[in-house]
């Protein structure tokens, strides 16, 4: 996702010299092409995320569109107040990009597990939260952020699902219905979509069809269209590499509980006891019940009609 996003950004920055890329000293190797081609539109601010957001806000208030790049929790939690008071309150064109959502950096330990970022960023009213599930969505995100005024948080992931459509066909302001709602509908956010698709295929082979929705943003402008996506389901399962409260599961709970729909919701996510466990993204998914196999078992054990 990272490479696709950067290539998307490079295309935009070539056309608009007001586009700037700031990094807090991360992106080794990844940002080389951009730096080489557009040195005047690139600043490594050093290892100083609070200053990065402040500088970005100042630059944005003077007419620039500023992407702030870092990994894990560094461009969000480390500088949360700068995002809230400086960038968001002033509706500055500051685009916060973190690679390494969820367990992308699972082996690096707790400091690098971005597992509360969605809830925290979603709580800021002026900030849009964008979470691609595929590489083309990551590429489309570069342009979506460019076109959307104000502050967005883009959470990229090491893993990704297979693309069905080209970047220009993707509208990240809408959730993506991959398979329409069934008795059981699975909603996921981010690259863990690959597990959901695999689970749905395995279930399909057993004659069980499930609905499948990719929540590509966690700040939907309209709950009504999302409720329409849920219509006909008796059970929703939310899947995210994130703690179970406040992120996707929290959002779905908010949407459903304020509606007339009577749908049960199972929220899957990171279990508190596993927050500091070290391991690969796959290993940590398995530990938290977020793999295709675990999803299949969960769906089969929770179906009402057989």
């Amino acid at each position, binding site marked *: 996702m990272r490479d696709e996003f950067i290539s998307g950004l490079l295309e935009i920055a070539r056309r608009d010299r007001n586009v700037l890329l700031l990094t807090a000293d991360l992106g080794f190797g990844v940002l080389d092409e951009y730096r080489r081609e557009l040195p005047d539109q690139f600043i490594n*601010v050093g290892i*100083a995320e*609070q*200053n990065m957001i402040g*500088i970005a*806000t*100042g630059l944005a*208030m003077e007419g620039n569109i500023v992407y702030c790049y870092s990994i894990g929790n560094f461009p969000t939690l480390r500088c949360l107040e700068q995002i809230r*008071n400086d960038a968001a309150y002033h509706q500055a064109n500051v685009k916060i990009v973190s690679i390494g959502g969820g367990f992308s950096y699972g082996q690096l330990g707790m400091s690098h597990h971005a597992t509360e970022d969605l809830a925290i960023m979603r709580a800021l009213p002026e900030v849009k939260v964008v979470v691609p599930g595929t590489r083309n969505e990551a590429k489309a995100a570069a342009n979506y952020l460019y076109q959307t005024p104000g502050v967005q948080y883009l959470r990229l992931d090491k893993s990704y699902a297979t693309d069905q459509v080209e970047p220009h066909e993707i509208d990240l302001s809408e959730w993506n219905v991959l398979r329409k709602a069934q008795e059981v509908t699975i909603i996921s956010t981010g690259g863990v979509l690959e597990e959901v698709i695999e689970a749905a295929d395995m279930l399909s082979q057993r004659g069980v069809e499930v609905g499948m929705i990719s929540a590509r943003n966690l700040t939907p402008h309209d709950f009504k269209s999302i409720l329409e996506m849920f219509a006909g389901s008796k059970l929703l399962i939310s899947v995210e590499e994130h703690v179970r409260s406040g992120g996707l599961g929290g959002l779905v709970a908010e949407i459903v509980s304020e509606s007339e729909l009577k749908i049960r919701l199972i929220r899957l996510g990171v279990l508190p006891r596993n927050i500091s466990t070290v391991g690969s993204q796959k290993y940590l998914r398995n530990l938290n019940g977020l793999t295709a196999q675990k999803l299949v078992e969960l769906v089969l054990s929770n179906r009402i009609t057989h």
Partner: protein
Amino acid sequence: MNSIDLAAKIRLDAVIMTNRGNSSHVASALSIADILGVLYGGGLKVDPQNPNWPERDRFILSKGHAGAGVYAALAETGFFSTEKLLTHYQNGSTLSGHVSHKGNPGVEFSTGSLGHGLSVATGMALAIQRRRENSRVFCLMSDGECDEGSIWEAAMFASHHKINNLVAIIDYNKIQSLDTIAATLTLEPFEDKWKSFGWNVTQVDGHNHEELEKALSKQSNKTSKPLVVMAHTTKGKGISFMENSVLWHYRSPQNEEFEKAISELSGDK
């Protein structure tokens, strides 16, 4: 309005506003009244009729708790009506205790949490420099605020990038919220710190308008370095019983204290 008269108005307004609002930080506003007087009395290139004039100088009050002083300066120089000052701290007002831009023409940037202003000012100054324009960016900070690490992140960045259209002003009154700077977290050798971070440093009496005018003038910095003006000030300046008193960081002037403050400012001491 000349800077001396403006500073006097700012002091009077600040005392009235904090009295009516029953609000804190009157001493913090009094501390910077002369700096604001010099800036809005001609030091800053701004146009009250056109607050977003692209060629204006930018001013950020990073010590947002002294917002009453900036609101007063803006109202007294015609950015909005002086009657509006009486809404300070009132229900539904746009004039919050900590300075906010929303609904208040002339406020460049909202602050209130310390340590934010210098980074934003640096970003603005960098953008202006990249456009090869001549506006300058001023950032007024408190001394206690320099406890925040983000100030020093910005200080490193500004000197590394040779942002010489940036002027930081430190309201060096040597008192922070609970105690003196010296007793809390010493800043000295303060000048050496800024110099070692690659800044030009000028020390002035923060209540002497001639010294301030000279230090803040465009001619004061002809190098590639950013400039910090360390303005030695007296917290609560102008009201005898508030001067150099930790108490008046939070205390609001009420009843006899209010009347005494007004009479001192009115010159009948």
